[in-house]
């Protein structure tokens, strides 16, 4: 069994030095005349290309209209240019192209995967996606239909204890900050969104200056430039979205929501870090040790392996444009919720007190470095990475230097970062489950 640390490190050097070009995707980046940022990796071995467009138009831009970012993004499926929703879907599906939209708190995403060996196919895909991001129809009937879908979706969210917990957790951490509300909005806000609102939102945020286009696949540089040109030809330059407000840290509140479920869902956490945080690496690597390495993390060992309390238990920092959350999550039968919560708290307190055990830190680093080839082993993973790198303005050598930067993190740095940044006595605590069984106060809220 060859799993001794030294051998791995030397293997890694071999991987990183002479084979850099092979092991790490070579990213090219440029800014178009209109101001869109392009991230591109040439992968010629399969006759396909992935195009991922990321607009700074996630729900953090909802402002006074919660749900508008998600609704606008979804409506991009429902007609563009001269094509109604049916025609638009046919334009992609008749040639085997895949078109998807999604929206998060920071990002509004429009993705395309298409074949490249037939120029007609490629052109049809690109022309269609260009219409999608520049001339959406926002047809009134489609808007009404999608609005109803969102309302049904909001009801469905209410029947899942985990979703209820997650929503309450964000609200508790962020309050009125743009990260605080449910990205789907709420029944009142969604009902109030007008066609005009959607058109204005689109006009403001779906613009070249607010866009990162990532391209990965069998198109050469000249073709990639053409692809971007084709997609953004009709797109106004517009303006980059304004910086998000800073997150203010408040006292962590404890919230218990009564829910007719057999399990109690536990969310514990606080605002964590932003994408540009100077403590990013020590917090990332430290959390890998603590609760971010699946079944072998300290948290999983204590909660799941030793006590059989939970099927899924983990912690993570979700770095975002502003300070994304740090969270610890588990679910357990109602009767054992207090026990699980206690173990989670105690583990965090211990970790902050003692820092990561050296041996575990070594194992985590080995996992991250040895697993690096897995992170960039497919076009779909590469396109997601480079879009992220472009969106958060990371340097182009982010991937190439990732392993060496992780290797350089010390136990002291982690210890210090956790001590300074994580406040175990001030965590927001959200429990959602049957309160008569899980022992939380069962006062009713007005």
């Amino acid at each position, binding site marked *: 069994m060859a799993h001794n640390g030294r051998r*791995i490190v030397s293997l890694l050097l071999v991987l990183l030095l002479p084979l850099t070009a092979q092991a790490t995707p070579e990213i090219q980046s440029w800014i178009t005349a209109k101001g869109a940022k392009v991230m591109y990796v040439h992968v010629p071995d399969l006759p396909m290309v992935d195009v991922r467009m990321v607009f700074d138009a996630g729900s953090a831009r909802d402002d006074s209209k919660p749900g508008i970012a998600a609704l606008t993004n979804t409506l991009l499926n429902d007609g563009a240019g001269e094509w109604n929703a049916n025609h638009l879907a046919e334009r992609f599906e008749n040639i085997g192209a895949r078109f998807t939209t999604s929206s998060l708190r920071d990002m509004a995403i429009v993705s395309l995967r298409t074949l490249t060996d037939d120029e007609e196919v490629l052109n049809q895909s690109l022309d269609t996606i260009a219409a999608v991001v520049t001339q959406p129809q926002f047809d009134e009937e489609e808007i009404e239909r999608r609005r109803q879908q969102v309302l*049904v979706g909001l009801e469905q969210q*209410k029947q899942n204890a985990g979703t209820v917990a997650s929503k309450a957790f964000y609200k508790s951490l962020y309050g009125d900050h743009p990260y605080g509300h449910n990205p789907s909005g709420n029944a009142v806000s969604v009902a109030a969104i007008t066609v005009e609102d959607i058109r204005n939102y689109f006009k403001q945020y779906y613009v070249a200056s607010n866009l990162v286009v990532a391209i990965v696949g069998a198109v050469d540089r000249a073709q990639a430039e053409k692809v971007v040109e084709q997609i953004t030809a009709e797109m106004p330059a517009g303006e980059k979205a304004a910086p998000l407000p800073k997150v203010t840290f408040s006292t962590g509140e*404890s919230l218990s929501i009564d829910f007719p479920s057999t399990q109690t869902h536990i969310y514990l956490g606080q605002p964590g870090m932003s994408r540009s945080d100077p403590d990013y690496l020590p917090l990332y690597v430290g959390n890998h040790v603590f609760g971010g390495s699946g079944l*072998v993390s300290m948290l999983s060992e204590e909660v799941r392996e030793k006590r059989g309390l939970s099927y899924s238990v983990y912690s993570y920092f979700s770095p975002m444009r502003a300070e994304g959350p740090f969270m610890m999550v588990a679910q357990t039968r109602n009767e054992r919720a207090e026990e699980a919560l206690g173990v989670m708290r105690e583990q965090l307190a211990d970790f902050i007190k003692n820092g990561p055990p050296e041996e575990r830190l070594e*194992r985590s680093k080995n996992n991250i470095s*040895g697993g690096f080839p*897995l992170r960039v082993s497919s076009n779909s993973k590469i396109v997601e990475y480079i879009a992220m790198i472009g969106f958060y303005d990371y340097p182009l050598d982010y991937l190439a230097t990732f392993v060496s930067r992780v290797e350089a993190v010390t136990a002291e740095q982690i210890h210090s970062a956790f001590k300074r940044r994580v406040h175990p006595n001030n965590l927001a605590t959200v429990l959602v489950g049957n309160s008569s069984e899980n022992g939380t106060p069962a006062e009713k809220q007005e």
Partner: protein
Amino acid sequence: MTKTGSAFLGLLATIALFPLAVQASQVQEFELENGMKVIVKEDHRAPIAVSQVWYKVGSSYEPEGQTGISHVLEHLMFKGTERYGPNEFSKIISENGGRENAFTGRDYTAYFQTLSSDRLNIAFDLEADRMRNLLLDEKEFQKERDVVTEERRLRTEDKPTALTYEQFNAVAWRVLPYRRPIIGWMSDLENLKIEDLRDWYQLWYAPNNATLVVVGDVDAEKIHTMAQETFGQLPPSDLPVMKTPVEPAHNGVTRLQVKAPAKQPYLLMGFKAPVVTTVSEENAWEPYAMEALAAVLDGGDSARLSRSLIRGSSIANSAGASYNAYTRLPGMVMFDGVPAEGRSIKDLEKALLSEIEKVKAEPVAADELKRVVTQTVASKVYEKDSVFYQAMQIGMLETVGLDWRLTDSYVEKLRAVTPEQVQEVAQRYLQPDNMTIAILDPQPMDEKQAESKSRPHVGVKHGS
């Protein structure tokens, strides 16, 4: 660890569409002396490889009263052998930069590791060890059974649509073991004893009941040698011979209602149908006609259900159709959906049935079938982006008793389907007398919210 197979139509559909190849794949097949099958597909795009060990055992092999035992055993496979302590398997793989997990389905239990391709020997060594030398310690079993009951609560008990699916299967199938949930009934899980697990392990975990699939940056001959040096050293077993149960005729529509705390109703409808493993030679086209049927109805936003029910009449908030041609025992063409705001579950049922009637009354358009084939051909290219998915296809086909070469011939078989054949299978199988229909009837959730800013936190109970 562990996904418990697909509980929802979305997942079923992914498997069902199972887009397969145009040109022959670069696959090599070996058989070790102890009967273990080794299938290797070289793919040199990235310096990684996936290794999957598939066992021919899953929930459809389980006896009454022991439902869920295959899945519990899958969990216990991470709990130590004579050489390696509990959880050490996971630690070693992790330390080597690998990702690993396992999953149990109706017809299979599979274990996988994805690693830098020069470290596959580590996975082989560990995987061969636990194929024959599992400890099955009583204490570890007790804890892990708790974990599995938590998994059941998370995935089924507290999920109204999953509960509906579970009840649907229990009622729709009279005889076929597909009537039992993969994760097992709660009472069966509670009644399991470590001895049951030991027996189950002895019965099924043997090299001659397993297939090793490797896809990635490897040399097939070297993999063969490595497999011989590890798995090849294990003794084979006498495997039990299973009787094949036969589902009796379904004489009339079966309806069921599932009451659970929920906000939205949900409908699930299924029609029993043959699959590739069970059709006669002259009807070998039928499963492919049903795959085409499902894709005409639900192969994207331009397909019929989206076009007519979600948009169009706006009766459905969501609607799906699925069918999987590749299972060990017969299957179902399934439909599901959630009514749109202001529409009833009755409206949705009527609308789905009328879409079915349309397929029966009139051959589908040539354009629709063409779209299905084009999408499948494209998917065939896209799937090469994932070594894991390629290995999944091979492993699943082999384990349900089919030939991995079907991945190569799928497109041709689909291309050969005619509009009349789609109509014919619809007429033959999508009949009311062959139908089971389940309705989730939402019960009040009675939410109340308690907030206490300074709730005292009870101390830890140090249990173990």
